[in-house]
């Protein structure tokens, strides 16, 4: 069954453990600058927002690629960059409305989140469960439960 990364922004403390885990798994170094998941810091509003590829169904990056270097993996419901095919033209980085596929000067190719083949390192590393990997069709359950708790009925 397909799963998706699910991010609960209110739980994020801005520790960057997800970025460290991602760069470690992908490159063998600790390097937030090369992480596929990025935590945005909105200091004045006290919000820390982890964000990465949502694996959209009609993927802009996939459709924009002139050499078919981005493939759909239907089993894990993910879009994967075939590095050997990628020519580093960056058209996909322009096409993506969310900025979650990026060019890497080191390799001359683009890179994006590939869900670590089904066991995302960022999920393991997150100390507050702000990032979870759950049934793609049940990502609203937490929100519903919070609503239920907030509005618990009372008799008289």
């Amino acid at each position, binding site marked *: 069954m397909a799963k998706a990364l699910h991010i609960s922004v209110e739980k994020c*403390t801005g*520790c960057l*453990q997800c970025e*460290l885990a991602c760069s470690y798994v992908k*490159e*063998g170094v*600790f390097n937030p*600058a090369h992480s596929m998941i990025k935590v945005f810091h909105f200091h004045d509003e*006290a919000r820390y927002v982890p964000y990465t590829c949502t694996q959209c169904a009609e993927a802009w990056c996939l459709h924009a690629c002139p050499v078919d270097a981005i493939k759909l993996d239907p089993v894990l419901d993910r879009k994967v960059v075939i590095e050997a095919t990628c020519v580093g033209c960056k058209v996909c980085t322009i096409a993506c409305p969310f900025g979650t596929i990026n060019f890497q000067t080191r390799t001359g190719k683009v890179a994006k989140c590939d869900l670590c083949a089904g066991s995302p390192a960022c999920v393991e590393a997150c*100390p507050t469960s702000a990032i979870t990997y759950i049934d793609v069709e049940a990502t609203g359950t937490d929100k519903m439960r919070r609503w239920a708790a907030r509005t618990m009925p009372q008799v008289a």
Partner: protein
Amino acid sequence: MSWAKKILRVNLSEGKVASEPLKMEWAKKFLGQRGLATKYFVEEVDAKVDPLSPANKLIFATGPLTGTAASTGGRYSVITKGPLTGAIACSNSGGYFGAELKMAGWDMIILEGKSPQPVVLIIENEQARLAPAGDLWGKTVWEVDGLLKQRCQSPDMKVSCIGKAGESQVLYAAVVNDLHRAAGRSGVGAVMGSKNLKAIGVRGTLGVGNVHDFGKFMQAVNAGKKVLRENAITGQGLPTYGTNVLMNVINQSGALPTRNFRDVQFEGAGKISGEAMRAKRPDGKSNLVANQACFGCTIACGRVSKIDENHFTVKNRPEYWKASGGLEYENAWSLGADTGVDDLDTLTFTNFLCNEHGMDPISFGATVAAAMELYAMGVIGEKDVGFPLAFGSAEALVKAAEITGKGEGFGKVLGLGSKRMCDKYKHPELSMTVKGQEFPAYDPRGIQGMGLAYATSNRGACHLRGYTVASEIFGIPVKSDPLQTDGKPELVKAFQDATAVVDSSGLCLFTTFAWTLNEIQPQIEGACGPGFSQEELLALGERVWNLERLFNAKAGLTAKDDTLPKRLLDEAAKTGPATGKTNGLAKMMPMYYEIRGWNAEGVPRAETLKRLGL
């Protein structure tokens, strides 16, 4: 091996930057950060140097675990000779700056000389340059942070800088990074100001990859994270309430210094506690809005607060309506209990001012407290201060912070610190300091071991050199009676040595509420390779401690400086569990010197130095 193996040396007088290899034989003996930078410092700087002269140096140093995935592995320290104390100064900070410096490929920066005009140091990976900063001089910490990122077109740049307090050489000026994390104590910011260096901006995208054994390291890292998560203090207490979870606990222990240590319990403690920060104010909101982690930290004790927009401190001042660094226990105490002010938003605002102007809120609050006592005694009056300075006055506290941060009027006197101020008014006994540095938030009449820890701290009165509170109050690693002196010399030495290891590694000391060397050692060994067994690390910590001690001795400090203010030795606590108690320093000191391997004058014996390889 986790070190970047590279040092950036900056000669500010000549405007030159140069890269040099890290001395790896020193790294093996002193690890990194506090220990390694101290080694470089004592080798290069005459101990008699005037701290605010160009001959003093200023070192920004990371540890081998800085920038790794080790929980809390983002620390850096600023090492210099402190203007407040005349002793070695080593102030530790979190946030993101330290890790960014390491990501740029540098273990440390050594700053020498004095720039002829204000400059900033810009580091982008291997490229480092000095740039004129005349237009940034006079700007606040908060302004410089934004302006420098904008100027370098580098939104992810991390900035460490001084505010006006550092420029005007307030003797307890801090170096502040990421807006509200600070290398806070001993006046390291005044040294930076004396060198005409306004800020260091760093962007690092090279990463930290030089780890000795990735597999072993990650195994130790993950085991460590689990221990932090499952521990009641690091897993629940600190994330929920921050360090200010201590306010009520220490007050109940009768060890909360109040109104310049006249009392040991504060009637307003509950109103300024970590619990109060979560309670609803009249505006229906809480003071605390979020907790924030520093780089890599899975504890996340950092407080982010927002002041009630109708509070007198910020009314019609929207620039202070945003969320920013909230109260930790130490500054809630120094700005609150020690001055007798019990209004949470006032303390939060004063803390904002300390961050914005770049000064140590512990020393600032404690200096105001001493000034309030001088005022209460009639030694100084409204004509000296410019306004009434009564204990408990929120308005006075805020005014004092504004004039001290800006170096105006009586603020110039407050900027001297408590010792010099009390000397000036001929009441040295009112200065609650050791070696010229103000006390933190634990009264050594109610926590006996802390008296010895303060008296022997190498950077003047400080809770972060030997935190025996952990044992005496929380029973970590074993419970000891806070009202007894027995066993305290051994306890103080053990805490001091272990702390020196943590401070040299890149990790945060707060992990030690949950971690012992059992968790820390495998992380260091995994990252750095062999040669760092528990025994070797403890010897390393002791080596660092003695190295600092030797520097202080050469600087002119003697056993006479290992003491406490008379108030703590002669005036008994009036309330609480410690009623009738003074600090039993005289009972502890000879034994401490003995187990340290020092002579009766507190000087390390030749065989001790030989044993430690010094």
